């Protein structure tokens, strides 16, 4: 008996047509890890935040393109003059997937659960201060009043993070008010999100949103495989590409690789200045000298870091605020120029001297220290190696130590047993208040000298004062003036040597329409409800 391929019959062709139509209404994306939780209030990792962003409704959404807050479940809002109270007028006619109506009670109950200390929600911390936490009460079925214990700047942006769930929800996670609901979940393999049939939003032509029927996220840890699958048309968008893979895609499939410009993120180096750190006193003295820190900053070739490590997809940094942050970046602040001669001059003024190619301090100690960074980050390892060579020209001997992330965190937050550290900061919110947990001297994440009982230097005291002052008013100009001064102090004192701001590098298939990649997370699918997926184009992604 011979086997042969049978020609497709007419019903089979129809089936193919139906299959291809339904497949076209699904977007295929990837997550790099399994979400640690599907509870929207406990989301702390990128995968969980992605699912939360797409499945949950919020009162106000910060538009990732314009950075402006826009009405969502709240139709409108008003903020009191003293910036302590916000009144939301809720949208009428919104329903949960089970058909129950959305009311003020749902908002109040959501916040009660969120702020429950037993939940340990990372989102709740934003609404808590030393003077207490935010209090919410309803006024009728569609008005909610939120009272903050102290004046809070940009308070409306804080509500972008809080998922509103049904007051009648028996347990979490529960179908939310987002554009999608969780469909099929295959642990370790994929998560499918289906369109929320009860979603309230419509497009400009009155069509119900979202435009696609579903989104399938495949769990794909390997970035190379992710790109390969994109090239095959199995994945429609990639939210974060490495510079290396971006350039590769740009050459292989021009038009699909998009550089969305500088992100709000930054890569930086800092020295351990903590007095209690188990570091030799002589080394601590170097690190506590602003002249030494500025000299190191001057000796690092930021342009080379951007050109070589990030393949020109990064911008040299002058401080914590990226030039992409148009509202808060201090105009006129420029990155430290690469100037080893000026660096040596500064070091000379501090008593350092170059002898036989070795830099020595006043007591004759050779200047040598280690830089720690997290293992597995190719870009950080490369940056550390380039900095090592740059500083070798000043006579400094640098050891690079790569550590697994838990060990690194243990050293920089608890034991403080390290000398210098190279890391990055992912900044989601453009508002300066987002940097409070890093810049306040009392903060546990204050990198160079964490958890100070009182500011140990006058300039740190001034930063504390200015940061608290900017957070205590809603007047933009007053806030900007204070925060500009903070940026100036950071530039003068250089407690952190800001290196660069990486660009958002994404991939968008030609079959996706409506994509407008931005520099803020999520870069590609922030407007997922308005994305549509056509058929796969011939000859590429």
């Amino acid at each position, binding site marked *: 008996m011979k086997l042969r391929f049978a020609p497709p019959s007419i019903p089979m062709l129809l089936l193919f047509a139906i299959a291809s139509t339904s497949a076209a209404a699904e977007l295929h994306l990837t997550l790099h890890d399994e979400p640690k939780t599907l509870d929207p209030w406990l989301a702390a990792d990128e995968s969980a935040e992605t699912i939360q962003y797409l499945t949950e409704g919020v009162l106000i959404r910060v538009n990732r393109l314009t950075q402006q807050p826009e009405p969502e479940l709240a139709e409108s809002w008003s903020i009191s003059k003293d910036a302590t109270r916000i009144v939301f007028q809720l949208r009428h006619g919104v329903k949960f997937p089970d058909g129950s109506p959305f009311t003020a009670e749902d908002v109040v109950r959501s916040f009660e659960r969120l702020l429950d200390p037993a939940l340990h929600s990372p989102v709740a911390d934003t609404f808590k201060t030393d003077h207490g936490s935010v209090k919410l009460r309803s006024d009728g079925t569609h008005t909610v009043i939120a009272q903050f214990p102290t004046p809070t700047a940009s308070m409306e942006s804080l509500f972008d993070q809080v998922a509103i769930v049904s007051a009648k929800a028996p347990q979490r996670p529960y179908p939310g008010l987002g554009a999608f609901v969780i469909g099929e979940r295959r642990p370790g393999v994929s998560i499918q999100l289906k369109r929320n049939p009860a979603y309230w939003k419509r497009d400009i032509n009155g069509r119900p949103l979202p435009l696609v029927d579903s989104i399938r996220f495949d769990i794909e840890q390997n970035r*190379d495989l992710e790109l390969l699958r994109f090239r095959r048309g199995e994945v429609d968008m990639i939210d974060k590409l490495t510079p*290396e*893979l971006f350039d*590769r895609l740009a050459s292989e499939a021009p038009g699909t690789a998009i550089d969305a410009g500088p992100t709000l993120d930054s890569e930086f180096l800092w020295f351990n200045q903590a007095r209690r750190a188990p570091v030799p006193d002589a080394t601590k003295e170097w690190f506590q000298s602003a002249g030494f820190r500025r000299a190191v900053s001057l000796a690092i070739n930021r342009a*080379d870091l951007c050109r*070589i*490590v990030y393949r020109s997809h990064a911008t040299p940094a002058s401080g914590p605020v990226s030039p992409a942050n148009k509202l808060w970046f201090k105009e006129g602040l420029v990155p430290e120029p690469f100037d080893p001669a000026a660096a040596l001059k500064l070091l000379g003024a501090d008593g350092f001297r170059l002898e036989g190619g070795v830099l020595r301090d006043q007591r004759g100690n050779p200047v*040598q*220290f*280690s830089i*720690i960074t997290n*293992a*597995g*980050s*190719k870009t950080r*390892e*490369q940056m*550390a*190696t*380039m900095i*090592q*060579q740059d500083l070798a020209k000043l006579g400094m001997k640098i*050891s*690079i*130590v*790569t*550590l*697994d992330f838990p*060990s690194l965190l*243990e050293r920089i937050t608890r034991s403080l*047993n*390290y*000398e210098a550290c190279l890391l990055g900061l992912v900044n989601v919110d453009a508002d300066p208040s987002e940097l409070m947990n890093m810049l306040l001297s009392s903060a546990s994440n204050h990198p160079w000298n964490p958890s100070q009982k009182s500011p140990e230097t006058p300039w740190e005291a001034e930063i504390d004062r200015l940061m608290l002052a900017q957070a205590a008013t809603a007047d933009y100009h007053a806030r900007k003036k204070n925060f500009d001064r903070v940026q100036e102090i950071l530039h003068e004192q250089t407690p952190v040597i800001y290196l660069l701001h990486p660009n958002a590098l994404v991939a968008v298939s030609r079959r996706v329409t409506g994509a407008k990649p931005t520099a803020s997370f999520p870069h590609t699918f922030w407007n997922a409800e308005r994305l549509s997926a056509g058929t796969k184009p011939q000859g590429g992604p």
Partner: protein
Amino acid sequence: MKTARAAAIALLAVIALIALAPEWWATNRYETQFRATPDAPPSARFPLGTDALGRDRLSRLIYGTRVSFLLAPAAALLSCIAAAALGGLAGLAGGFLDRTIVAAADLFLSLPWLFLLLIVRACLPLNVSPAASVTITFLLLGMLGWAAPARVVRAAVRKLKSSDFVFMARARGCRPWRLLWRQLVPNVAPILLAQFWVSIPIYILTETTLGMLGLGVAEPLPSWGGLLRELEGGYFIAQPYLLAPAILLALVVGSFQLVLAREDFSI
């Protein structure tokens, strides 16, 4: 088989010669960054091109060979000395000491090496030179790797202890030390040598694994593990010269297996 063995010995000898004096063969220093020419293709100046930071790949491969090729045998030697001492003692003494050493060996064999190395590495002082860090890494590997050869040595010693020629020597009044040096050690030596040869590629591959995870030899010192990380991107189809460290690794590991004749494993 003899030809293959001879070829393997010749290849290892050549690589050892290069590894012993890399400065004779390398055209540039391994750490020098030619920043104007990152990712350069092969040329007369850079026969294997340059890496992402503009460093000469050939020079890094030669210096990396020194690290992996010379320190792996040192680690293997250390583990074999420990194995000879502990395995020999267990085999000769028997009883409680034997049971304790065997239990310790089982414990070491059941430990997840990689995690153990990560823990030990995290506890090491940070401000050590790359050369010191690589020496410490291989020392640790050597100290952790004694268990498997120790079990082999113990089994051999126990077998020899109950053999006829040892029994006859004892019957003729041979003293314990003479018995050890004249009867046992010469018979265990080939087994130890075999264990030594078998261990070398294992240590080379372990360092390679650590290097590929970014936890091996500290920058800027090159090692095969660190060099193999360039293959992660899968560019070797368009840039086959990136495969040079992988080919060298395969040749060396294969050669070590060929050098050891099958009969060397037998007691």
